[in-house]
């Protein structure tokens, strides 16, 4: 019994820690888009818990001291426009100094609006145009298999992004080759640039679509760290099948003014927004 209590205690501690770190990622990303007067704040906020769990919950087997470690898990940030949250997660993980985040989109900064693998350690693919990440992740998963290695390929896509046909081309390859070392995570925040996804091109029933394409599918609350941790620690969902985790999220999550508002897709926080968000996120701002 004591062992179980101990494990449960550690679990609670992990979850509390991830919740705090995810909010730090949120605040960091908002600081960056505030600084650059550009960026994609809404998606940064919806993806923050997923990124925190993957990187800071030690799901991804990566080594910041050796970013080119051949046996590392590959994480492809297909929704490359949410670079504020992505860069923050990489910096928090230790791939580069947190101070660099302050140069976001500055002239000649290594932190381009969309990630560039040749400029920043930890970035696996240059993304930005949508629908590129999943084919790349499929290729990486195939490479691991060809080489007889047991690393995995993860990809985080947006939901609007799935309107790009290249995703479904890649999904067919993933199921054909039974790539159970591939994990697709969908940030299902239901909003794309112009409107709610369902008003533009209906995406429901999304989980069933992935299942129909041969994936083992799980639906989770994408802001629930305990659930995210337990699902991501038990992969693949089903041996012999690629995994898809549809993470239901709220765009703009964590700053009530931005939550579930299409305008915040690329809305940029003012200084006042930043101050209000810090309070909501429980961030102590030192001047």
């Amino acid at each position, binding site marked *: 019994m004591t062992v179980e209590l101990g494990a449960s205690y550690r679990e609670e501690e992990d979850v509390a820690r991830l919740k705090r770190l995810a909010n730090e990622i949120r605040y960091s990303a908002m600081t960056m888009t505030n600084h650059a007067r550009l960026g994609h704040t809404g998606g940064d906020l919806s993806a923050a818990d997923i990124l925190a769990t993957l990187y800071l919950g030690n799901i991804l087997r990566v080594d910041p001291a050796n970013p080119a470690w051949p046996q590392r898990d590959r994480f492809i940030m297909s929704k490359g426009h949410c670079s504020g949250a992505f860069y923050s997660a990489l910096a928090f993980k230790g791939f580069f100094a947190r101070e660099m985040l302050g140069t976001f989109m500055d002239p000649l900064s290594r932190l381009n609006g969309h990630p560039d693998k040749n400029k920043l350690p930890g970035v696996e693919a*240059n993304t930005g145009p949508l629908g590129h990440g*999943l*084919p790349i992740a499929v290729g990486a*998963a*195939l*490479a691991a298999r060809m*080489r007889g290695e047991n690393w995995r390929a993860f990809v985080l896509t947006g939901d609007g992004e799935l309107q790009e046909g290249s995703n479904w081309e890649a999904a067919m390859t993933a199921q054909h080759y039974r790539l159970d070392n591939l994990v697709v995570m969908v940030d299902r925040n239901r909003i794309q640039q112009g409107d709610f996804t369902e008003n533009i091109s209906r995406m429901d029933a999304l989980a069933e679509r992935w299942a129909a394409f041969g994936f083992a599918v799980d639906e989770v609350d994408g802001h629930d760290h305990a659930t995210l941790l337990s699902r991501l620690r038990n992969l693949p969902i089903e041996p012999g099948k690629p995994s898809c985790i549809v993470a239901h999220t709220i765009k703009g999550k964590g700053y009530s003014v931005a939550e579930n508002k299409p305008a915040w897709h690329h809305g940029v926080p003012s200084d006042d927004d930043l101050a209000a968000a810090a309070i909501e996120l429980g961030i102590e701002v030192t001047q």
Partner: protein
Amino acid sequence: MSAGAVVQSSAGMAKLLDCRDAFSQTLEAMAQADARVCVVVNDSVSSTKLKNFGAKFPERFINVGIAEQNMVGAGTGLANGGMVPYVCGASCFLTARAMEQVKVDLCYSKANVKLCGMSPGMAYGQLGPTHHSIEDLAWTRILPNLAVIVPADPVETAAAMRYSLEHTGPMYLRIARMPVRSVHKDDYTFRLGKAVVLREGSDVTLMANGVLVSRALDAADTLAAAGIEARVLNMSSMKPIDMDAVLDAARTTRGIVTAEEALAAGGLGGAVAEIVAVHHPAPMRILGVPGVFAPTGSAEFLLEHFGLTAQGIHNAALDLLGERN
């Protein structure tokens, strides 16, 4: 024409060979020697002549089906995972259908992926402009970080393939389907960024790539008979291009004729013109498809139709030198 067919050239002398055979045989040998070599195809197993490769190395042969964007993206992921993927498909679909993946996943990212554009130009003849690939040279040539190679014959196809494995970075190799005779000796070594001088001459320079190279050599013969000495350069390394060879031609001969099985805009002629216009203006004639989609006809008919023949190159040289027929 059947696979590996050998026919006599119009001159009745040299064998005409399909570069795809040299391509696939070389790739098999490379895969035998290097475990990183793998292939991605878009259902085009027979038209890429990779059936044998698939049988010999099934675990390194990925067929994504008819899905070119995915094909190029998967190639990028394979390269990320330490493999050296040869992504092979009809050049018309490989380039046009997957151009953003080529731009972003390969070129911007500097992925070590080799694109093999099969049956380029108007090789698909009667199938029509949907299947012709006369735009690919303009599209690929402008992309940063991408090496663009247009081999002239089977010997150079094999040499360029072997070179591609030594080269780290994205590459586009244009593999001809139309039978051509060999213009290189068997011990030929491909050098990126270097023009190959196939014939010396000081009156005019003929620059060609791909299936037009042997035709340029034929044109040099007939020009010689007319008392004109033509230099012939195989410009197989289209990017990077041999700037020294281009400028030397501009300085030491009276002008340059370029010939390619592609749109006259944006290809080899464009690349040469960009150099001479800035550094040493020289008279030029640019032979290619003149800004139209081809009418119906066989590959050979269409090359004749657009003057992409030895006679057409001959005439362009005379025109440039002010010596009309």
